[in-house]
């Protein structure tokens, strides 16, 4: 156990050390403050609803019913579809950039990919709304419906609109693509050259080397990249509000509309923030997002650990 005296021995005794400690404390305390504030404000509704907060499907400020199940499902489906699009896209891009593309080509491809990071999410939102929405309504949705529509999750349930979970997920994928790609590429490139040489010298082909040596060795870094992408996907609000339809119901297909937790907060906070219970309820959604991120990160780490761990095949 650590008592106060032990802590004191960890305080640096030189001036720069103390200054850095002080600054570190500022950032750490701001995190603690946010948590306290978030949980504090949310607690009345969380305590009142109990488990019903998660399992309830009604959200009504007038009757005082707060259940986030449909919002939770909306966010989960959106995140799942986003990751299903973004993971292969960014990982394969990263593998290409790190392993195959000559240096000059990587030099040309990297900057535009990185530039995507700088575009504000509201711009992604209007891009999706004014350009992709039409394309999805007239081309993408009918195509998916006609090829995979016999599976219920690919059915085009509202052909009159391009607004859908898939549209939101597609735009979200483009948003997280640069982060995940750049970090994955870095993870791949930091795998020691020795491994590569050893594998090639044993008569493995380049692809075998990538598959069996480089990817597993880079897995912790790739997982970190995915986690950062995942966090952004879960937390993203602006573009989602514009593209997912914000219709509180159970989405039956990825071409259906949905309502994400973040969108609910953004849509309602402007008006309901001045009422105590609604405000607490909206903050409770924030807590749910926080917990969801926490669980996802833990899961991703666990999966990544299983992937990278050394086991007999």
């Amino acid at each position, binding site marked *: 156990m650590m008592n106060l005296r032990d802590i004191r021995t960890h305080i640096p005794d030189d001036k720069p050390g103390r200054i850095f400690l002080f600054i570190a404390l500022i950032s750490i305390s701001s995190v603690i403050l946010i948590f306290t504030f978030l949980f504090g404000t949310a607690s009345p509704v969380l305590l009142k609803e109990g488990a019903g907060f998660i399992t309830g499907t009604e959200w009504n400020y007038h009757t005082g019913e707060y259940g986030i199940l449909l919002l939770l499902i909306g966010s989960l489906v959106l995140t799942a579809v986003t990751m299903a699009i973004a993971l292969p896209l960014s990982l394969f891009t990263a593998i290409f950039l790190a392993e195959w593309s000559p240096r000059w080509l990587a030099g040309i491809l990297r900057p535009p990919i990185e530039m995507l990071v700088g575009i504000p999410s509201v711009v992604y939102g209007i891009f999706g709304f004014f350009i992709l929405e039409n394309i999805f309504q007239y081309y993408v949705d009918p195509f998916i419906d006609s090829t995979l529509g016999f599976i219920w999750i690919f059915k085009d349930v509202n052909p009159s609109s391009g607004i859908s979970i898939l549209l939101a997920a597609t735009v979200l994928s483009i948003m997280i693509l640069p982060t995940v790609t750049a970090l994955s590429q870095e993870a791949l490139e930091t795998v020691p050259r020795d491994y590569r*040489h*050893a594998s*090639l010298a044993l*008569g*493995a082909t380049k692809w075998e080397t990538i598959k069996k040596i480089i990817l*597993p*060795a880079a897995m912790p870094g790739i997982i970190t990249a995915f986690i950062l992408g995942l966090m952004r996907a879960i937390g993203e609000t602006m573009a989602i509000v514009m593209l997912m339809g914000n219709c509180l119901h159970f989405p039956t297909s990825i071409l259906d509309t949905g309502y994400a937790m973040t969108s609910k907060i953004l849509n309602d906070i402007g008006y309901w923030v001045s009422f105590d219970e609604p405000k607490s309820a909206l903050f409770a959604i924030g807590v749910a997002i926080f917990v969801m991120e926490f669980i996802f990160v833990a899961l991703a780490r666990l999966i990544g650990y299983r992937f990278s761990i*050394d086991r007999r095949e």
Partner: protein
Amino acid sequence: MENHETILETKKLNLFYGDKQALIDVDLSVYKNHVTALIGPSGCGKSTLIRCFNRMNDLVSDCRIEGQVIYHDQNLYSPAVDVVHMRKKIGMVFQQPNPFPKSIYDNVAYGPRVHGIKDKKILDGIVEKSLMQAALWDEVHDRLDDPAMGLSGGQQQRLCIARTLAVEPEIILMDEPCSALDPIATAKIESLIDDLKKEYTVIIVTHSMSQASRVSDFTGFMYLGKMIEFGETEKIFTSPDEELTNNYITGRFG
């Protein structure tokens, strides 16, 4: 020297890194089931030369090669050569022990698996045989599933040798295999090299002249990209023909 069978031969081998010439008209014959050592001061091209034998220089983007490396009557640099297959026959052990971040078993089984062997029994046999040949079996047989990174440097290097042996090469290239090891580990690898030449042909690059004299049958002395002198190790170290060789082995420069 004439009664030895040549397994690998270079003819007028020239190599350039960009504008810089690293090998100049190198002619060398490597004899089967013997140990050939390449010695010379740092930067003389000995490591570059050994990397030509399994085309590891291909990985260097601005590397250009002229001349021939003949292996089984075929120029390794002719377009018809399957580099992947060739590397299976000409294995390499590197300067730094570089086991994969996998278990001991998986390290040795890596090559055979890549080449399509899936049968667990066969793999077990290969792993055991290779580790035996690399004189590592007794030390690790009861912990094959432990990570290879947990082994000592000397053990890691012997594991790398076992990993190379597992794909049944004809020639084993060793690029300063002991330079990162302590004297005891070095002695173990040296006695291992002596055993290996019964079945394999070994080419070793070393900066240690005493090592070259201990382990090799033939020695090539290189200087500034040229093969200055090549001959039986005993002769090179006792009565070399070239003044330069004599100066190097007597420690006048290096």
